């Protein structure tokens, strides 16, 4: 087995004295496609930010590609949860994508045509090539989401972290979106935070339940019948997240 892309050992993190994450252990291997689920405030976004090196753990060790996170963060493509609030910001979709080319590019070269072409190609791959020249504020939520994913992809990441990427996409769009992620997963390791396990369960390879603690349900536990997928957290002593699925939509309950 190859060395894990991310290895998290015994990590705890508190925010203003309140423990958000405790004793987290997680190895993310090459080619993984992990869904991270759990209740709001359960620490999913915090865990992503720890992996990105935006936050420092109070205890424990995180290694990304064998390095401290802040040194390796340029190998991670990140799609944040809130796709920006300032709608009037003067920037076009393609310039948002080009932001992913920051770092390493020559300062004096102005806008590099090679970078531009690559950004456009990625946008087209996201089915958003026609949006390139549009101002970001004029796009719909779903379109903006595509631009932000393109921005993450143009960094040529080894690991893609997405924080609730489908929040502003309709149900049909979500299916398309996860199909796309599945295709991307052939080259890139993916961790996607989601509320909706049902929507992603057929695409991901494993599920990590996060609610202060973390339990990683490996492949074996979620392949098989759909009914099993709905209850990946039956081992109550182990997993901090309880799933209840009486029809649709399912609900994620808090700690028990």
């Amino acid at each position, binding site marked *: 087995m190859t060395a894990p892309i991310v290895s998290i050992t015994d990590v705890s993190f508190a925010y203003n004295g309140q423990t958000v994450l405790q004793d987290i252990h997680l190895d993310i291997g090459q080619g993984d496609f992990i869904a991270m689920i759990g209740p709001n405030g359960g620490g999913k976004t915090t865990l992503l930010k720890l992996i*990105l*090196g*935006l936050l420092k753990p109070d205890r424990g060790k995180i290694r990304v590609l064998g390095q401290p996170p802040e040194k390796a*963060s*340029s190998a*991670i493509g*990140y799609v*944040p949860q809130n796709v*920006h609030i*300032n709608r*009037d*910001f*003067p*920037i*076009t979709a393609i*310039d*948002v994508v080009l*932001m*992913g080319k*920051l*770092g390493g*590019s020559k*300062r004096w070269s102005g806008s590099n045509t090679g970078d531009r072409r690559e950004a456009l190609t990625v946008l087209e791959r996201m089915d958003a090539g026609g949006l390139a020249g549009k*101002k970001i504020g004029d796009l719909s939520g779903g379109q903006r989401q595509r631009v932000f994913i393109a*921005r993450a992809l143009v*960094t040529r990441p080894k690991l893609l972290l997405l924080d609730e990427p489908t929040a502003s996409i309709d149900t049909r769009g979500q299916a398309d979106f996860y199909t796309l992620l599945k295709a991307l997963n052939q080259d890139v390791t993916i961790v996607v935070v989601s509320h909706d396990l049902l929507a992603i369960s057929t695409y991901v390879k494993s599920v990590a339940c996060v609610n202060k603690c973390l339990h990683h349900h490996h492949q074996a536990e979620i392949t098989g019948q759909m009914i099993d997928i709905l209850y990946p957290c039956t081992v109550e002593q182990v997993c901090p997240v309880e799933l209840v699925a009486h029809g649709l939509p399912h609900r994620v309950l808090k700690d028990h």
Partner: protein
Amino acid sequence: MIEALQFEFMRNALAAGLLAAVICGIMGTLVVVNRTVFFSGGIAHCAYGGIGLAVYCGWPFLPGTIGFSLAAALVMAGVSLKAKHRADTIIGVVWALGMAFGIVLLDLSPGYHADLMSYLFGSILTVPGSDLWMMLAIGVGIAVLVALYYKDLLALSYDEEFARIRGVPVTALYLTMIALLAVTIVLVIEVVGLILVIALLTIPPFIVERHARSLMQMMVGASVLGCLFTAAGLWLSYRFDLTSGASIIMVAGIGFFMTLAIERIAGRLTHTKRG
């Protein structure tokens, strides 16, 4: 306007106003997109404390004021980086305290009676040529720095977290931007006054923001608009014998509300067409 320009003081006033407009167009764009308007107000008012300190201690005027404003600005920036939700309160405190500190120190300085009005509205009609050269130097310096770090400033302004992940030295860049802002504000205040600086920092960039497609366009547009306001305001002040700084701001304010009205009407028209 042409006849007015036969006077050297009018030529100097116009040059000073245009330079201030360009400097404020560039820095104001960064101020508006980073939402540091209140911050800039804090720096500008706090600079008065520096003036008081320089007079009281008998220091040369510029180094004293700049040093004081820089220190205050970096304190405010430090707080806003560490505790964002407290930033506006701290800025309010430093704002008031700096100003009061300056006034008390001027009271205590023998034989000096500060003219608060000239600090607030500047004395654009009595700008000496040496100040023009200083402003030109700042303007060129700012343009070069912003051009050099354009991509990083764009990333910082648009999405600080993403910039950090891409390896942009966000904290250092932010502090540099604030320091640059502090120096700019103090130097331009000396020439055109505090109120005009705030107006030029905010009004033209705000008007242009919604129509610009890039930060660069916004900077250029805001500079051009600032120049128009300044020229028109100066002409009005000459023609009707009004305070020059206030006239420029009145023109800018009218421009501001006219844009809002036009946008509203245009928005309604396209809406009717669609609906």
